[in-house]
């Protein structure tokens, strides 16, 4: 399912773009999956159940942290095996495995600003892959913030980048205490994605 297209050929250029990205390292890859394979990808997710999750920073629907269907487990394994070596070279972080959950953001769903960073979790690179939606979403952008910290506390958080949840787009970004980001509220339609983190 996962194959790196021509956009991945020049790893030196991608590494430069990664390092230069602001407000923190990130890359965007459009047309990530060959168009002819998208129906097959969507079919592999059909049986994976999702449920509503709600906390003070989020409301969304998602699959369980551990996939329940062999199809999603296979997608997760092949995603890591194809991307981890290339992303290791591009980002300079040794990566081996990835987790993967399916997400469905409906109207009114959101994920408020947070960094993904927790010392004990080992998340190195975050990713989100936007699937084609039967009801293209309004809103639901990934927003990256420029932050300043003093004594371990954030003292400034300013909006810096908005990334549209365009279908068949992969976004990867570095996880750190300063990688503040959010999923803006979906105002209508359906935002569906696969997302997770890469680990050493």
């Amino acid at each position, binding site marked *: 399912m996962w194959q790196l297209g021509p956009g991945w050929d020049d790893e030196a250029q991608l590494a430069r773009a990664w390092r230069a990205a602001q407000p923190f390292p990130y890359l965007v890859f459009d047309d990530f999956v060959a168009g002819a394979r998208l129906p097959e990808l969507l079919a592999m997710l059909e049986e994976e159940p999702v449920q509503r999750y709600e906390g*003070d*920073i989020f*409301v969304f629907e998602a699959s369980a942290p551990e996939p329940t269907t062999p199809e999603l487990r296979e997608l997760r394994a092949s995603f890591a095996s194809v991307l981890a070596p290339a992303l290791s070279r591009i980002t300079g972080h040794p990566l081996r495995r990835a987790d993967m959950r399916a997400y469905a953001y409906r*109207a*009114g769903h*959101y994920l*408020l*600003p*947070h*960094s993904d960073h927790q010392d004990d979790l080992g998340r190195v690179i975050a990713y989100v892959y936007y699937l084609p939606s039967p009801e293209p979403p309004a*809103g639901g952008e990934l927003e990256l*913030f420029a*932050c300043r910290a003093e004594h371990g506390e*954030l*003292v*400034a*958080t300013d909006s810096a980048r908005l990334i549209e949840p365009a279908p068949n787009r992969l976004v990867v970004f570095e996880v750190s205490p300063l990688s*503040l980001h*959010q999923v803006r*509220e979906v*105002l209508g339609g359906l935002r569906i994605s696969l997302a997770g983190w890469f680990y050493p």
Partner: protein
Amino acid sequence: MTTLEQLFGGRTAMVVDDVVGPSRAAEVRGRLARTGYTRYALLDRGSYELLADPQEPALLAALTEIAARMTGRALAVAEARALRLGPGDYLLAHHDRLHEDHPVELTLDLSPASVPGAELHYRRRGQVYFRVPCVPGSLAIVERGPTVSCNHTYVSKRNPVARIVRLMLLLRDR
């Protein structure tokens, strides 16, 4: 099994309706607005407007008296603030302060209109145990404990005219 936290932790959690009427709420709301709010925007914690130490002595005294009657405690105002939230605003639980003692927190809803989904969530060890909906004129009375935190839920942008005004008091034993 009953835990010590359940026995001695946050106890009273209730909402008293119609504590102030629409016209008095509008008067107070107007005075607060004229005094002026300051926007808080450290977005990993919250997004809202704050007015510290609102000068509403008569109202604060009346609310304290209601809380004293409902909890059976002799209480005095320790802190007061007014919060104003619009579409896209929120206060996260980790922006809230934990209290080692058991103060009483009051929230008077001065909003001009009800905003469905805009709630206060009181949590014990992270789990929501008490939800306060946005009902103009109502007063929430919550006895806090060392493991109790509170968040103000995200206000949806799908309601572009949503406006929530909360007068919040922390009361301690006299």
